[in-house]
């Protein structure tokens, strides 16, 4: 009984330890909220032109879901947007700055496609989640009499992302949100491996998604009042 209690308390301790610390920084061009008409939409895109990493597509989808959580901010899915604008938003051709985007929008066909989709804001997300540290080891063995694992491993993940909002009407930057999420995960193996995983990417998505929402929601609140 004593052993069971100590086992449970160890698991609880580890579960509590597998938390994530998230830091969110925000920069706004001005104090007023971003205007978004009910017919207008936002698109969230990930940067994919770096050689050693790319912003995860599921992270971009997650931010889209956070923004569109109560159907107040209409979001055009990334895949759909990139296909509609093919080949102008591929890693090779996507604009890295507003000047390049402005030049792109000089092409009537591209501008028309933006208009048809009711796009008002483009949010570029750059960053990724990486394993920054790992320690310990877990060994598993299998034999005729059965198998099992033994050991203890820990690893730390850091997710660093920056979102930049471009206003497609004024062709100016409207704001930035930077998030850093850090969390340690554990794997305890006594016959059966028990992973206690910190949801770093999910926490980063929560942080950046909810913060981005405030850029638009404030305007909705003031509109309603």
């Amino acid at each position, binding site marked *: 009984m004593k052993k069971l209690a100590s086992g449970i308390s160890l698991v609880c301790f580890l579960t509590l330890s597998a938390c994530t610390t998230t830091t969110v920084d925000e920069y706004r061009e001005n104090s007023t909220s971003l205007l978004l008409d009910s017919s207008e939409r936002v698109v969230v895109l990930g940067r994919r032109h770096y*050689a*050693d*990493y*790319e912003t*995860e597509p599921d992270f971009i989808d997650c931010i889209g879901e956070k923004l569109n959580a109560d159907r107040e901010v209409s979001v055009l899915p990334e895949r759909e947007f990139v*296909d*509609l*604008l*093919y*080949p*102008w938003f*591929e*890693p*090779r*051709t996507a604009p890295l700055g507003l000047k390049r985007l402005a030049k792109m929008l000089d*092409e009537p*066909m*591209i501008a028309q*496609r933006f208009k048809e989709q009711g796009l008002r804001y483009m949010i570029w997300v750059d960053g*990724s989640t990486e394993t920054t540290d790992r320690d310990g080891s877990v060994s598993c063995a299998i034999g005729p009499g059965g198998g099992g694992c033994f050991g203890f491993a820990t690893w730390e993940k850091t997710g660093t992302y920056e979102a930049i909002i471009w206003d497609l009407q004024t062709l100016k930057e409207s704001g930035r949100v930077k998030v850093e999420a850090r969390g340690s995960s554990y794997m305890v193996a006594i016959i059966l491996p028990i992973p206690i995983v910190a949801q770093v990417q999910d926490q980063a998505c929560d942080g950046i998604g909810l913060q981005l929402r405030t850029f638009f929601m404030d305007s909705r609140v003031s509109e309603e009042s």
Partner: protein
Amino acid sequence: MSSIKVMTKFVISPRRLLALSFALASLLLSACATKVEVDGNFPPALTRQLPLRTIVVFEPDFASHHFESTEGPEVSIAVGQIQVELFTGLADSLFQHSSTATSMPTSTSMPTQPEADLILRPSVEDVQISMPNESQLKVFEVWIKYNLQVYNSAGEPVADWIMTAYGKTPTRFLKSSTDALHQAAMVAMRDAGAHFITGFARVPEIRQWLHARQTRVSSTNTSKMTEP
């Protein structure tokens, strides 16, 4: 007792032992080999159409191209069919009229009333792949080097355009290398499409040819207008 009997029977049968060894060996070898048949769809390209009639020639080598790497783990990528679909779609988007052929039109089929202003013959020069265990990066990469040979209606060469395409996909937990390479190859194909659409009219020889053609068409129109 019965299990011991079965075991004994199994061990003493050399034919079964051999069969089992072969089965195990092939299972282990297939576990190491990565075979990718690239398939998928490409969206139509958003571009201004050039007022040209073209024939895109997909020779059998190109239409059934597959790459095999024997260095390190065995990897095979079949890109032939998807390339044909990609270039057919790209030509439909970029040119006003486009058709395909499986061999270069001969002098008897082309001549006085040419069916095409330009003939495009794509070929694969090289394919390279990089796996995370080779590059020490957490990405699967695919490079494809195309040579797009462009001929005029008389079958004379206009340009030899070396076009590179690159695609990568990050490693993911529980994602197989087959899926990762498939995705990287699709990104490379889309990249080839982006290069083709944005770069075709910028290739110096093609640009020069387009300019000369434009001048020719304008002067023909002017002379027609000035004729009594």
